[in-house]
Each structure stands twice: as C-alpha cells, then as structure tokens.
C-alpha cells in the first residue's frame, strides 16, 4: 500500500465525502419529515390520504433505491420533468427513507397503550397536551433505536448514487481505480471515509438513545 498515493487522492475523497454527507443529510431530514407526517396521517386514519400513503410506503419499501433513482433520473425527463442529479439523489433518499421512517414512527405510536392517553385525558389534559406531553415523548422513545438504524441505513444507501453520475465516495473510488489501478489504496480510503461518515452517527445515536430511553428502559 502506497501512502503517498493515498495522500494524493485525499482531496478528491474529501470532496466526495462532503457531497455524500450533504445529500445524505438533506435526504434524511426530508425522510424524517415525510415519515413523521405519514405516520400521523396513518395513525389518525385520515380518509383517502391514509390509503395513498399506505400505497406509497409499500411501493418505496419494496423497491430498491437504485430502481427508484433510475426512475427519477432517467424516467422523469421522458415525462418532461428533468431534475439535477444531486436533487434526484436527495429526493430518492427522502422518499425511500420517508417510507421506512413512517413505519418506525407508527410502531412507536402503536406501542403506547390507549390507557396512557386516556389517563392523561382523565386528568383533564386536552388532546393537544396529551399528544405533546404523553403520546409523543413515549412513542419517540420506543422508536428511537429504529430511527438510528434507519439513519445509518440511509447513509449507506448513498453508495448507489454513483449510478446517476453523482460524484459521491463510491463514484470517486471506482473512477480512480479505473484510471490508475490502485485498487487497494482506493478501496482502503473508501472504507475509511465511510467510517468517518457513519461512526459518528452510530456513536451519537447510541448516546442520544440512552438519554432518551433512560427514563423508561433504564441504562
């Protein structure tokens, strides 16, 4: 392994790292918003919308991200709607992640017994107060591990972005290998940068998880 070569490639990887991170986090943020909204709609069983979102969740959970990206990137322009590659990547991640997050949040909501909310109501709390002070915190603490797992999963899924010619980490590694055949160096750097991207999320996730869940589940 040639460290000099690796040093030389570093700037390219760094650039790809920031691109991956940017698109990844925008995608995750969108996924959380979509997922939460979808979970609430499904929980309240809002007519029509509830069915549409159900179909959305099944569609995106049961097709690969790569296929979804191809559809967005190559399919939509055929329908007269072309979007840039970075936007396409973020959108794909949002839609896929939204479906996963929706299910994670829903399972959290459903884990809270009806009697908990009834108790809050029996104490005179309004629907809104019950939701904010009882239902949400309890549901989120149940959802927390699934939520962290989803984030890690989504960040890893960014590795298919190269298929829509986004210069992410995977793309950069493949490109460099193709050009200079420094396979070992390129792949090592790839692993290191993915760890940079994901380890903080794992570590931070478990710290937050422990804090959020301490009250209910202990250390």
């Amino acid at each position, binding site marked *: 392994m040639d460290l000099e070569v690796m040093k030389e490639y570093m700037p390219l990887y760094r650039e790809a790292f920031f691109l991956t991170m940017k698109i990844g986090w925008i995608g995750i943020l969108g996924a959380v918003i979509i997922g939460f909204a979808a979970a609430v709609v499904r929980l309240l069983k809002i007519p029509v919308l509830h069915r549409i979102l159900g179909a959305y969740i099944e569609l995106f959970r049961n097709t690969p991200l790569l296929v979804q990206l191809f559809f967005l990137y190559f399919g939509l322009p055929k329908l007269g709607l072309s979007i840039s590659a970075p936007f396409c990547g973020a959108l794909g991640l949002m839609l896929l992640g939204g479906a996963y997050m929706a299910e994670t949040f829903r399972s959290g909501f459903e884990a809270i017994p009806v*009697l908990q909310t*009834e*108790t809050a*109501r029996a*104490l*005179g709390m309004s629907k809104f107060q019950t939701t904010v002070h009882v239902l949400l*915190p*309890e549901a989120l603490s149940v959802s927390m591990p699934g939520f962290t797992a989803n984030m890690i999963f989504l960040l890893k899924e960014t590795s298919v972005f190269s298929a829509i010619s986004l210069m992410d980490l995977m793309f950069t590694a493949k490109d460099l290998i193709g050009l200079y055949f420094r396979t070992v160096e390129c792949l090592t750097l790839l692993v290191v940068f993915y760890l940079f991207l994901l380890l903080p999320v794992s570590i931070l996730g478990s710290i937050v998880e422990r804090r959020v869940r301490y009250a209910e589940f202990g250390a």
Partner: protein
Amino acid sequence: MAKELLKIEHITKSFDETVILRDLSLTVKEGEVLVIVGPSGCGKSTFLRCINGLETIQEGSIYLDGEKINDRSANLEKVRQKIGMVFQNYELFPHKTVLQNITMAPMLVQKKPKAEAEKEALSLLERVGLSDRKNFYPRQLSGGQKQRVAIVRALAMHPEILLFDEVTAALDPEMVREVLDVMLDLAKEGRTMIVVTHEMSFARAVADRIVFMDGGNIVEEGTPSEFFDNPQTDRAKKFLSTFSFDRIEKKDEYAGNPI
C-alpha cells in the same frame, strides 16, 4: 343530610349490539363511599368510565354538582378535573419521574406555578409514605408504590370525587394492603369515592353503601352489613358464595396421615 354530588339517571351504554349498561340510575352523596361489586363483565368498569366521559353514553343523564356533564356543550376538560380516576394498571407516565407524574396535570391544566405544585405533591407523597421516591422513575417502583403514586396524582388535582377501578387487582397481597390503607385513610377524611373492587373484606370495611351489579344494572344495594350478612337476591347470594369455602371433610384413610 349531605347534598347529592353525583346523580346518574337512566343511563344506557352499548358497544354496537352489545348492551353494557341498561337504564342504570344511582346517586352519590357528598362524602359517601360507594363500593361497586359484581362479576367480571357486569359493566362496573364501563360505568366508571362513563362518569368521566371516557365512554359516551347513548341515553340518560349524568349530573355532577347539579350540572349536566354528558352534554355536548359540557366542557369535559373542566369536568374531569373534578373527577379523579385511578386505574387497575396504575398508568403512570413512564418517561416522567414520580414528582413530574404528579405535578404534570396541575401545572398544565390548572396552570399552577411549579413550586406550588411540587410543594403540594411532596406533602401528598409524604402522606402515602413515598417522599423518598420523588425522583424515581415508575419502572423503579413496586406495584403498590406505583398505585399509591397514581392515587396521589389524582389527588393533586383536588377532585370532588374519586373513582377507583379495581386498583388492587394487579397487586401482590402485601401490596394490596398498602394501597387499601391509603384508600381507607381517604375515606376517613370524608372524601367522596366510588370504588370498584373484588376485595370483599375491604368493601365491608370502607363502604357506606354497597352496590351489586350484574348484567349492566344494579341488582341489589344496601349497607355493608345488609348486603354481606343478609343478601336479598339469589344472584347476590350466589356471587357472595364464591368468596367463601366450606371446610372440607377429609376421607378416613387420610385422617391423621397427611399426604
């Protein structure tokens, strides 16, 4: 004579086709302890849940302090502050400490300042012997402790009437006692209470009046001694007989020769 605090007139409750309560009427006076007994599924719990509007009734009226509370126009959030309810499985909020569980509703609903709510919570906790547990989470408490906290949580809202829904049914015998002692204490200080229970000796000790329910209505009512010593209906006699055992006669071959 004490005034009528709660007046229930001809209420009917059904879930789809199943009628749970049929044409039930009952009056509770201020300071009275009413104990409801009856077989499982007779509608006791549903009856309590109808009083504070957790279940809607199809027919009839419920008056608290002369005010009709089962109207659409009635403010249920106001009404519920006057009716404290304690559930079988405690239903403490698991993400809050003991103290937070108690102060939550007074602070959110009655807008009490935190210091005042906490001071009051602590003195109530003191009364039930749990002031040293104020910063514990529910999962760190025993069942009996949880239930005492749940009672304190209801008391902190200064309700006019307390509803207890089989509050000892999920507890070990020794914990049952610590919870019942708290309830006896509340009864002694003159609180108005409706207690649904299967603890017959407790019912006899605490009740001013016993109501026996079966099939969604009141079958018999009377003072504890009338009901327990001299039940009038066959249904009540049959129900009460399930709580006593006749001494068995061992067969000769086992006499003096235990297995």
